[in-house]
């Protein structure tokens, strides 16, 4: 397998390339995160490489892996996260994988340059990466969650996010009231919410909904309360 792109990269950015490999024929370069955008722009603009086709951007969490020296996946770096970018050239038909390691830092400091103005396709992929791993892309035009909702707690593809973790119920979004008219009393079902065993589950809609004022989420009254406690197993099955 040719290492043509890797050779050009090594020649141009000797110091910024941490290590390279071509396992399974995939040319891969681990680079210094500080040069992330610079190298990406070079890959797009250099006529010898011309990586104009954006393919994929994602991340990997290496939390809990063995030390880097014993781990063939990680080369010499012991950082926790790796941002992984796949690119392709439409004319030259070659591909490259670019990786940058990020240390385990506080949420706000976990960041790398955004490539959204290098390839417009990076926009959503970076939002997804932020959503799933909590990696901030500085300079991104609109970095918000994409697959999950704003109130979601944590970043699910991190290895320390327990797959069995449940999320708290979300309050009704006040600011959205004028966009989404609230349900009337006879609409909607209280899916997934704890209901009192004595209250009949018959029919859509009901006095129960009105009484608890679920839509406004004011303090629940009476024995049917318990919005904050976890749903019982019986209700989970039904929901």
């Amino acid at each position, binding site marked *: 397998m040719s290492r043509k792109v890797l050779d050009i990269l090594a020649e141009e950015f000797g110091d910024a390339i941490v290590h390279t490999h071509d396992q399974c024929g995939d040319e891969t370069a681990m680079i210094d995160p500080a040069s992330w955008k610079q190298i990406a722009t070079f890959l797009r603009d250099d006529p010898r490489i011309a990586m104009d086709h954006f393919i*994929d951007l994602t991340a990997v969490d290496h939390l809990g892996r063995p030390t880097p020296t014993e781990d063939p*996946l990680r080369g010499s770096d012991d950082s926790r996260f790796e941002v992984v970018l796949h690119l392709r050239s439409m004319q030259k038909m070659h591909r490259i994988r670019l990786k940058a390691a990020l240390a385990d830092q506080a949420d706000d400091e976990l960041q790398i340059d955004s490539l959204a103005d290098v390839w417009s396709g990076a926009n959503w*992929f970076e939002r997804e990466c932020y959503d799933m791993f909590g990696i901030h892309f500085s300079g991104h035009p609109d970095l918000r969650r994409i697959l999950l909702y704003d109130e979601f707690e944590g970043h699910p593809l991190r290895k320390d996010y327990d797959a069995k973790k449940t999320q708290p119920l979300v309050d009704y979004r006040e600011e959205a009231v004028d966009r989404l008219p609230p349900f009337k009393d006879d609409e909607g079902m209280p899916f997934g919410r704890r209901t009192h065993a004595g209250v009949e589950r018959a029919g859509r809609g009901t006095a129960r909904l009105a009484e608890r004022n679920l839509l406004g989420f004011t303090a629940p009254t009476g024995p049917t309360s318990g919005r904050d406690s976890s749903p019982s197993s019986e209700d989970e099955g039904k929901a």
Partner: protein
Amino acid sequence: MEPVDVELKDGELELPTDSMLVQMGPSHPAMHGTVRIVVELSGETLTKADVQIGFLHRGFEKMCERGTWSQCLPYVDRLNYASPMLNNVGFVLAAEKLLGVTVPERCQHSRVALSELARIADHMVCSAAFAMELGAFTPFLYLTKARELIYDILEEETGARVTHAFARIGGMAAPPSDDFGQMIRDAMPSVMQLVDDTEALLLKNRIFLDRVEGLGVMSQKDAIALGWTGPVLRSTGVPYDIRKAHPYLTYDQYDFDVPVGSAGDNYDRFMCRQAEIRQSARIIEQAVAQMPKSGPVNIDDPRVVFPPKDQVHNTIEGTIRHFKLVMEGVELPAGECYSYSEASNGELGFYILSDGSGTPWRVRIRPPCFACVQGLEQMITGGMIADVVPAFGSMNMIGGECDH
């Protein structure tokens, strides 16, 4: 159409100029999946659009990290549920790339034939829904009937109508049946006749043409930068098809063409899919003809492939082999690889990392329509609200794949 900007004198009647915020979806009768498009309207013209996805997010990538490699197969089935076989094959190709094995020729032809059947079914779903969203109900019925003929073959071969989970790392769950070729030869004429009838109904229909031609246009350069692949990219005139550009399986042994469009509008996207149905039919014909009648389907490696059932039940070695493969899974060598194949919507990539155990460290899917739907905002902004429906329909967003 641009909103007319009229200067008003004092005292003259002024129409309300506030723009209106409209939410299309997440469940909209004219929408082709679960998606919400928040649009800001000035009259009927879109001034801003925000495409919001994620309503079908099921944590596919997280789920894959909990089981063995083989246990990912039913999950990948449910990514693009209109063509599960293509996802299946894409995933096992990734695992086999990391493993460094190539499946026997009979298996490769079999995978190609089944994949192309799935591709035809997928394109039919897209075209059918696309036509129906524009009010044409008969093509929907025709294409659904044709798809049912294909599902019959797939059901006969794999035992399941939709979610087959039929591919295996290092082979297939079962060899192709003796009647496979004959079933295809029997069904294909009816399928192609229905496809022709559909086109005959639509392409002379003024309403249909008015709503697809010249609308939802995307330029080549933007499409490439957005990461578009598959029929939507080819509709802009880029002849990029992984089956030709980077052949895998036995695609280099077949004679087929890559249809491309020129304008990159809704019409071209629709016609690209229609033309691809015909090309897929050609591939299937050749694959079935070239497929050896007998011979192994699975690779000969006891660490990867399940032993035959009579060995499992009658020999201790077979039992142990089976037990280890079920409990510990196929152990892929430590490392990473990115494998890509041409799914019905474009490049379906799997970036997989193994730490050497039977459980994936990370399975990343690169869904083709995630990148495509990303371009929707650009396509519909500035147009009329009624044009959102055909533009979105021709993208063929599949929620399961787009939302992971």
